[in-house]
Structures are given as C-alpha cells and as structure tokens.
C-alpha cells in the first residue's frame, strides 16, 4: 500500500449558481460529484472525458487552486485539505502542473530562463539557478541560446517544452497534465508525448494525465479512467481498456474516434450517442449516463450503480456492462 502516491476519496466540488441582484444561490454546478481514485507511484493515470465532465476541475482541486466542497485528497497518506499555509507551500514542490494552453500559461513579459527559474527561486533550492535552468532546458530539448528569449518567439510545441521544464524544475513527485497536447499540431503532439514518456523514465515521475483524446491517452497511459458528469464510469489498465472496455460510455467514446484508416473506418460499427451532455447543475437521477445510454433499463433510472471491481485493476460503474470485446459487441448492438 505504500505504493500509493495519491488517493482521492469521495471528492465533491460544487460551484454555486448565483442569480438575481442579491446573488442568491439557486443551485450548484456539480463539477466533481463523489469521485474516488488512486494513483500509484511511477505510473500514468489518464482521466478521459468530454468537455464539462469535470476533469479540469478535478485537476485544479488537486493542485490546490480550489477548495473542494467535501471529500479527501491523500498525498503520501496525508490529507492535503487539512494542510496549513506552510505545509501547502511545501506540498507544492511535490505536485506540479502542465497547462493546456501554451500561449496563456507563460508570462509574456518574462524571459524563458526566468520562467523556468521561478520555482527554483521560490524555494531557493539551488545557489546556481542559471546552471540548473540550462540543465532543465537541455532535458526538455530546448537550446541554451533560448535562455534570454521571450515566449512569443516560440511555437506552441516549444512553449509547451518551456512549461514542462518549469514543472519538473523542483523534481516533483506528481505532475498533473491538463490537456497538455490538445492545443498542438498533430506532428508536434507526438514530440511532446514522447518527451513526457522519456522524462517519466528518467526522473521517475508520476503523471495524472487529463485529456479528451483517447488516441493520445493510448500512447501514454498505464491506466485509464473515464469520467462523465463528475464521476468515474470505468477505470482499468491501458490494454484492458482498449480491448475490453465494458462501460457503454467507454465504448461510445472509443467508437466515436475516426480512425486514420479508410477501410477499417468504413467497415466499423459504431455507437453514436443520442443528444448532448446533460447539465451538471441537474445531473440525471440514478446512473448519470442513462439519458444517453443505448442499453439503459428502468433500474438505471432509479439506482446509482457503484464502481465495482470486475477484474484485476478493472472497475466499472454499470448494471449492464458490455460483455464482449468492443468489435463483437458493437455488432451485437446492430443485430
């Protein structure tokens, strides 16, 4: 059990909806709604979901940019929500974040060297800051002559490298990556994904990798967790997920991704989900997915399925999980 780096227990993050002149709270957006998960040391857990599922809120809550409504976040066994200011400051050394937008996440008026040096100066970890910054720049594949340049001189991919260098500067134990490649071009995405993998091997990092793109996740994650309306629908190891995901929503997500292969694309059966994501202010009763689920029964509308163990490291929250492998299963839906 000492292998656990991060454990989240029944986390809830509600945002009040205020209406009228006197800002009366009329309802809550339930961005994260009773979520539990575990991240082990040295692994990459990918959180996958569509926009509005609460995955970015989850990231911001773990890193401490928001105070959750209830629940526990245990980092190395200690509940960080009970930390005082001083302890929180020390914790920040261990948890770092890489942001989605390489354009807004770097201060436009600071030189590359100063951006990467900021965490080093904040914790005074080293006397020779410049030496360390150059070391970090080399590690992420930035040329030393970029030290005195400004962020706007760089393309998205290189900016993201700067952001990664900043995140690893303090040798953190956990890095939260919030859609780190989704703003990048296809040919650049692969460079950054490989960089993440190499750094993980070299520095023994643990990633919580948040993404909407399952194809990216497939190439980086050890484990995959699917999120929908603030809850985990399914969680399993990478290979298990891509071969025998059994939550209907996981299967819908998988089959919605167009393959860069016209033959497979034409012959493949797919589950096209009806309608849109329900509002997180009024999530459906019972299983939150039942409004869009092709297999929903009455019991799904009344009761909330628990996240149950199905196999080694495989958890599903569904009363009627799909039993087959995705390809066969999709066909059975049609027949």
């Amino acid at each position, binding site marked *: 059990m000492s292998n656990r780096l991060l454990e989240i227990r029944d986390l809830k993050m509600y945002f009040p909806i205020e209406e009228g002149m006197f800002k009366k709270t009329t309802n809550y957006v339930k961005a994260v709604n009773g979520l539990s998960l575990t991240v082990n040391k040295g692994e990459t857990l990918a959180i996958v979901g569509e926009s509005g599922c609460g995955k970015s809120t989850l990231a911001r809550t773990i890193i401490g940019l928001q105070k959750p409504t209830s629940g526990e976040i245990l980092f190395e066994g200690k509940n960080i929500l009970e930390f005082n200011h001083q302890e929180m400051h020390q914790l920040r050394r261990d948890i770092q974040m890489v942001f989605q937008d390489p354009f807004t*996440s770097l*201060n436009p008026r600071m030189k590359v060297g100063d951006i990467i040096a900021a965490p080093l100066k904040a914790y005074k970890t080293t006397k020779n800051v410049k030496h360390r910054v150059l070391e970090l720049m080399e590690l992420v594949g930035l040329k030393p002559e970029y030290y005195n340049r400004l962020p706007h001189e760089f393309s998205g991919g290189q900016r993201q490298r700067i952001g990664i260098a900043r995140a690893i500067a303090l040798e953190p134990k956990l890095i939260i990556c919030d859609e780190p490649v989704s703003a990048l071009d296809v040919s650049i995405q692969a460079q950054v994904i490989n960089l993440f993998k190499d750094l993980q091997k070299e520095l023994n990092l643990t990633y919580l990798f948040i993404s909407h793109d399952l194809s990216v996740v497939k190439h980086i994650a050890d484990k995959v967790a699917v999120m929908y309306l603030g809850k985990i629908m399914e969680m399993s190891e990478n290979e298990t997920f891509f071969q025998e995901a059994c939550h209907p929503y996981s299967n819908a997500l998988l089959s919605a991704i167009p393959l860069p292969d016209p033959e497979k694309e034409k012959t493949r059966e797919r589950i096209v989900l009806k309608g849109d994501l329900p509002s997180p202010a009024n999530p459906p009763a019972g299983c939150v997915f039942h409004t869009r689920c092709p297999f929903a029964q009455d019991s799904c509308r009344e009761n909330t399925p628990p996240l149950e163990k199905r196999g080694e490291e495989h958890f599903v929250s569904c009363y009627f999980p799909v039993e087959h492998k995705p390809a066969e299963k999709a066909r059975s839906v049609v027949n």
Partner: protein
Amino acid sequence: MFKKKRNLLALGVLLLVTVATITASLWLVQSPTYIDSHQRLLGPSAKHWFGTDHFGRDIFSRVIVAARVSLFIGVVVAVISTIVGTVIGLLSGYYKKADFIVMRIIDGMLAFPALLLALALVAALGGNITNIIIALTFAFFPVVSRVVRSAVLQIRNIQYIEAAKTTGVSDPVILFQYILPNVLSPIIVQGTFIFAKAILAEAALSFLGVGVNPTTPTWGNMLQEAQVYITIAPWFSIFPGVAIVLTVLALNVLGDGLRDAFDPHAPAKRKKRTSMVSNGEQKIA
C-alpha cells in the same frame, strides 16, 4: 508611437515648456516680479512679447515662470495618485476579501466630482502647494485604482498567474513581478491624463481663489487677476490661457498616443490568422 507627427509635436511642446521653465532664470530678460507702474496693461510689443499686467510686470516672464508651479503640481499629483491608486487597485483586484470594502470606499469618493472634492479639501486644509497636492491626489487616485483593479481582474485568472501559484511563487512576487508589468500600460496612460487634469484643476482652484498663494505666479492665479481686465487688456488672460490649453492638449495627445502604442489590438501589430478568420465570419453574418 513617435512615428506619428501628432505625438512628436505633443512631446516637443512639453519638452519646450519644461526646459523653458527650468532654465528661466538663466535667460529671462525681464524679472517676472519687477513692477513698473509706468508700463501697466501694455499690449504685446517687441519689448514685452505678451504685454504687461496691471502692475506693469512682463506677462511672458510670468507665464514661463508660472509653468514651474503648474508642472510641478501636475507631475507630483500624477506620480503620487498613480502609485497610491496602483497599490490599492492591485490589492483589491487580487484579494477578493479586501476588494468589497475598498471598492465601496472608492465608489464613495468617485461619487463626488473630482474638482469639488479637491475644493472642499483645500478649503478645509488651507491653500498652499502641499495641501493642493494632497487634495488633488485624493481627487484622482480613485480613478486609477478602478482602472488598475479591472485590469488585474482580467489577468488574475490567466493561466500563467495560476502556473506561478502552483509553482510556489509567493503572493507579493506574483503581484509585483507578474501582474504589475502586465497592467503597466493602462497605468501609464492614466498617469498622463491625470497630469493634464491636475494642471487644469490647479488652475481652476487658483482661479477660484483657494489655490496657491496669490503672490506666486501660476497660470490659474494669472487668470484670476486678469479677469477684471478682460475687456481692456485681453492679452492678460489670453496668454496664460493659451499656455494651459497647449500643455493640457499636448498631454492628452501623448496619453492617446501611449494608449494606441500599448494596445495589442492596434493595427500595426495585426495577427494574420485570427483577424482573418473573424473577418470572414463577420462577412458571412
């Protein structure tokens, strides 16, 4: 920004006035305080370029020397109220808890017209340069703090500020090294406008008789003295008036120029892709 003739001209006027008034004692032929009772209320001539006043003093010399007081008050008020306003704006924009109380007080101050507030303060404190500076600072800093606060609110949630927080950078460093440089441009622009407004306000206060000691030549004092003679000696009012107009106009033009130069949406720095797409969409709609 100095590619534009307008801005260059404005800067020229300001430099000229400043240099002229600082070096005045070195080159002025006529002393601004020399009284010649035989030469009262003379029109402009080769000897007295701007004519003479009711004591026979040379108006040109007095206008030049008066600039010293006016510019001094303008600069000091601009600097102090910008600094005070910036600090208050930064704090209340960044700390949500402080924001509510501070901004209600600022709103209260803004509810009074700036000049009236200054007038009341000077009337209470007594008219000398220090008090005028204090009064005008009180009148102008609320505007700056409002502007700074709204700029801070805009960038407070940009990711690089959050990124700094998550890397453990402390609040004072975030405020002064991350946020301040990014809100500096509206602050500088506001500063120039306050400079101009302070000169006007000082003139107005002096004109109303609650300003700087009437024996000190300032543009406002001169106008106040000249008003009696406006029909028989119009030059007495015109030249100090022109001095005020030129200086204030130059400052305002400069402020506009700075605003354009700082504006990221200025046409000179157009960004190819974003602007094109949005134009295309507008045309469709």
